[in-house]
């Protein structure tokens, strides 16, 4: 009777200015650690989490770039990014983290998941 959850966590806030995105990543890594199926979608200003070369120590924070690069190893199924928002913020193959799959936020995409939550 139990339908396994396929979780999508959507991060649509820019990095470092607020904490919701970081805590949403913790949620994704927790699910993965417990062998649950989870993908992360970056959309809106959230795509800026995926830019190479973030020197977060300059504002006394930790960069999540390494964590994100290791997401597949930790068991996160996919790192998705809204293609139009990447274009808006000039994220191209040159400065976008590897392993990111460009998508469009449509009913077809969200229909692949049965548990969807936003960062805060």
């Amino acid at each position, binding site marked *: 009777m139990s339908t396994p959850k396929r979780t999508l966590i959507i991060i649509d806030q820019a990095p470092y200015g607020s904490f919701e995105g970081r805590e949403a990543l913790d949620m994704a890594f927790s699910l993965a650690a417990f062998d649950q199926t989870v993908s992360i979608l970056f959309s809106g200003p959230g795509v800026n989490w995926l830019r190479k070369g973030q020197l977060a120590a300059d504002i006394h924070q930790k960069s999540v770039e390494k964590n994100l690069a290791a997401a597949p190893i930790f068991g996160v199924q996919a790192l998705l990014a809204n293609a139009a928002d990447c274009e808006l913020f000039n994220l191209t193959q040159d400065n976008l983290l590897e392993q990111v799959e460009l998508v469009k936020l449509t*009913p077809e995409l969200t229909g692949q998941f049965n548990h*969807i939550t936003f960062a805060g």
Partner: protein
Amino acid sequence: MAPIHTLHILNKTPGHQRHEACLAALGPQDALVLIENGVLALAKGLDTDVACYALMPDASARGIEDPASEVTMVSFDDMVALTSAAENVISW
């Protein structure tokens, strides 16, 4: 009532990027429930093809009495029924 694939619960004000993203992500078998500041979409005017509901207490708190006829005003009891019935729920 037709089966609901995804019920979208929207609490962001019109103009907020997540409000606009929600309206753009509605599928043909989906339904929309406006709550909290989301009900201000009724003041601004809402143009969508899916079934649309608005939480009555939030609307009346904001002085919105007489929404467009395509929108059904609902209570918390109704909202529980809607969230139970839908295949999926997204809180925007």
